[in-house]
């Protein structure tokens, strides 16, 4: 603890950036849970990843539609996987996107709200450096929208921006969710490359009545991808490197791209521990009992 009036705030260990990886939904969630477990032990970790096959993720407490309960993920849509996240919020369709996961001791960087703000601020800096015209960040003052975004429903996460989430041209670009367990904090989120979130609505509607009318006129939904904001869209590796660099530096790491961590030995050691832990969580995430628990 810091003595009252001391200039420095206690901080967690410097962020270790893990290599970019592509995996299926169960594996991705298992690795994120392993990151949460390591965070409870004191680590601050960041990784970016992709999804193969594309995947629908449900929020921890989100109800799956009756038509899907107990069925194979393949029944959802051919070739599309399904998982349930350990974090809150609503469904997300993980297609053309860059996904990030950040974990740290729950109090080391100021607590969940401070981490949410700091990660999004760093992502915003990285996106702005790439030329993305982001909107001003919304605070807690947008009460009606906050309540709608917090409500657990069948709607896609990207239908409503929550406080601190990143939007461009009034549409949601980055959505995130968190989980706290045994003193660790996990935050993961999606940075859309293309808007395919209509596929993530569990109620079969792409948008609400008002937004539907707007979409019919404009052809645009409530979400937006980087492909509509950057022309040409930079290579994915460049985007990951820029974002990883900004987030890692915000959490105490020296500047370094994700593809070449500043501390390779720490990243390798952490990756080895993650693989071991993730195997245990993967069994849970591949089970129908977890996926269709609600």
């Amino acid at each position: 603890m810091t003595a009252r009036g001391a200039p420095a705030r206690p901080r967690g260990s410097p962020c270790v950036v893990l290599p970019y990886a592509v995996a299926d939904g169960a594996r991705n969630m298992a690795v994120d849970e392993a990151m949460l477990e390591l965070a409870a032990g004191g680590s601050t970790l960041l990784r970016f990843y992709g999804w193969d096959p594309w995947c629908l993720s449900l929020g921890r407490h989100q109800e799956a539609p009756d038509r899907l309960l107990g069925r194979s993920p393949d029944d959802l849509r051919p070739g599309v996987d399904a998982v349930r996240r350990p974090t809150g919020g609503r469904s997300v369709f993980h297609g053309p996107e860059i996904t990030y996961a950040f974990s740290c001791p729950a109090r080391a960087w100021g607590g969940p709200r401070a981490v949410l703000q700091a990660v999004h601020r760093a992502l915003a800096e990285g996106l702005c450096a790439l030329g993305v015209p982001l909107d001003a960040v919304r605070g807690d003052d947008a009460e009606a929208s906050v309540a709608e975004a917090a409500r657990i429903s069948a709607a896609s996460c990207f239908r409503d921006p929550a406080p601190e989430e990143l939007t461009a041209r009034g549409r949601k670009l980055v959505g995130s969710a968190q989980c706290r367990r045994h003193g660790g904090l996990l935050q993961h989120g999606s940075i859309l490359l293309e808007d395919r979130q209509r596929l993530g609505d569990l109620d079969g509607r792409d948008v609400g009545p008002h937004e539907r009318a707007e979409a019919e006129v404009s052809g645009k939904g409530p979400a937006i991808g980087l492909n509509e904001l950057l022309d040409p869209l930079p290579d994915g590796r460049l985007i990951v490197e820029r974002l990883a660099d900004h987030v890692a530096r915000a959490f105490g790491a020296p500047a370094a791209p994700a593809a070449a961590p500043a501390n390779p030995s720490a990243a390798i050691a952490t990756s080895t521990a993650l693989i071991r832990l993730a195997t245990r969580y993967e069994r849970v995430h591949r089970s129908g009992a977890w996926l269709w628990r609600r």
Partner: protein
Amino acid sequence: MSDIPEDLRYTPEHEYVRETDVDGEVLIGITDYAQGELGDVVYVELPAPGDEFGQMEAFGTVEAVKTVSELFCPAAGAIVAVNDALEADPGLVNSDPYGEGWMIRLELEAPEDFNDLLTAEQYAALVADADEI
């Protein structure tokens, strides 16, 4: 400034424990400080009566603004009852954490465990430390 009633006991994970009129049975919920940190609670996942938990074993979860937090059993025991009202109105955790926002009624495996929990004074010191971070 969060409310920390003198007559309750607490855990470092921000659960409170209230004695009931039945020996060895306690009511458990999350503190005023915890609900303030969480923000608007939108869902509370609770166990079933009869379920048994060890000390600091997770007995449920609470979700607020897309953040899921686990709830920890302050002492070993068996669930006697859960607060079903939270299913329809999880906001009771915010509006009345020490009253209608209680979560579980637990029969302690060892009633003396109650005395090992943090006092209000100790918990207030813990919260003050946390706020300095």
